[in-house]
């Protein structure tokens, strides 16, 4: 009190009254109101019987999250990445065959290139001689087969 007089003389002169009041019989009724609220709280408390859905909840949640992750990862991969991969492989195929052909052409000198052309022309235009044909037939067919063939024609 002396301390208060020293630091706050005006305040220490005031009466220590709390200028508040309450409704009539507030404290008489409060306990009964509190009991009513407690009863409501007790009734409102959820039952603790575990239901099947509650037991399965964590597993369902886990499965759902896996499915979600799968969808989020697999679908974009399938739609975007595969089309890109196809494009790349097609490009690679084209470029491979083209470049291989060019490499072969570059590897051949001019004279041997024309010699090759002449050779292929001669192969296509030249006929077999009778002697060559005779030796081929006698080497690959029996007399009987030749007889049969000539008899039918």
């Amino acid at each position, binding site marked *: 009190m002396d301390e208060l007089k020293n630091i706050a003389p005006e305040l220490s002169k005031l009466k220590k009254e709390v200028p*508040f009041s309450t409704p009539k019989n507030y404290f008489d009724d409060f*306990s009964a109101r*509190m009991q009513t609220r407690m009863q409501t709280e007790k009734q409102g408390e959820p039952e603790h019987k575990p239901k099947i859905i509650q037991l399965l909840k964590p597993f369902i949640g886990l499965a759902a999250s896996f499915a979600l992750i799968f969808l989020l990862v697999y679908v974009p991969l399938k739609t975007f990445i595969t089309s890109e991969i196809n494009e790349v492989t097609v490009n690679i195929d084209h470029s491979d065959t083209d470049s291989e052909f060019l490499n072969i052409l570059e590897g051949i000198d001019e004279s041997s290139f024309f010699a090759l052309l002449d050779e292929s022309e001669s192969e296509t235009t030249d006929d077999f001689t009778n002697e060559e044909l005779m030796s081929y037939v006698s080497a690959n067919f029996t007399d009987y087969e030749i007889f049969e063939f000539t008899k039918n024609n």
Partner: protein
Amino acid sequence: MPDSDQNIIADLKDENKRDLAFHMLVTTYQERLYWHIRKIVMNHDDTDDVLQNTFLKVWRSIDKFREESSLYTWLYRIATNESITFLNSKKKKNMMPLNDVSEYLLENLMSDPYFNGDEIQIKLQQAIIRLPEKQRIVFNMKYFDEMKYDDMAEVLDTSVGALKASYHHAAKKVEEYLKNTD
């Protein structure tokens, strides 16, 4: 701890006597806690809500009560925390600055039909409302309730030295307001 408090605690922990013991606890402490809360939230209706929440919290957490502290300081601590939580929720709802609830409390005080102070008491309440929250609670507990610093330290979880300094600053500010405001 008084014997009556020890009996109440023992009965509260006994399943068969719990309801009756809780009724005893409410009737014993309702008035003291009401006035403690009322000085923090000002308005009667708000005080009624906070007081009910306080007792509900006591009911739910009676098993957590450690008999190292007295029942009285434990109840005061819950009531103080519930009052602060209530004011914080009001601040959020009304988009008030976090450290200033004085305007809301002033409005609450002046519109409360259960406030019947004269001019000087209104002035004193206005000065108290303008204090920072912690200082306001300390000032009310010391000035009106004349609570011991040791008990206050237990309720507010603060050192006695800090509480003395807080009360000193609060009293100075109130004095200044009383002197300088018409």
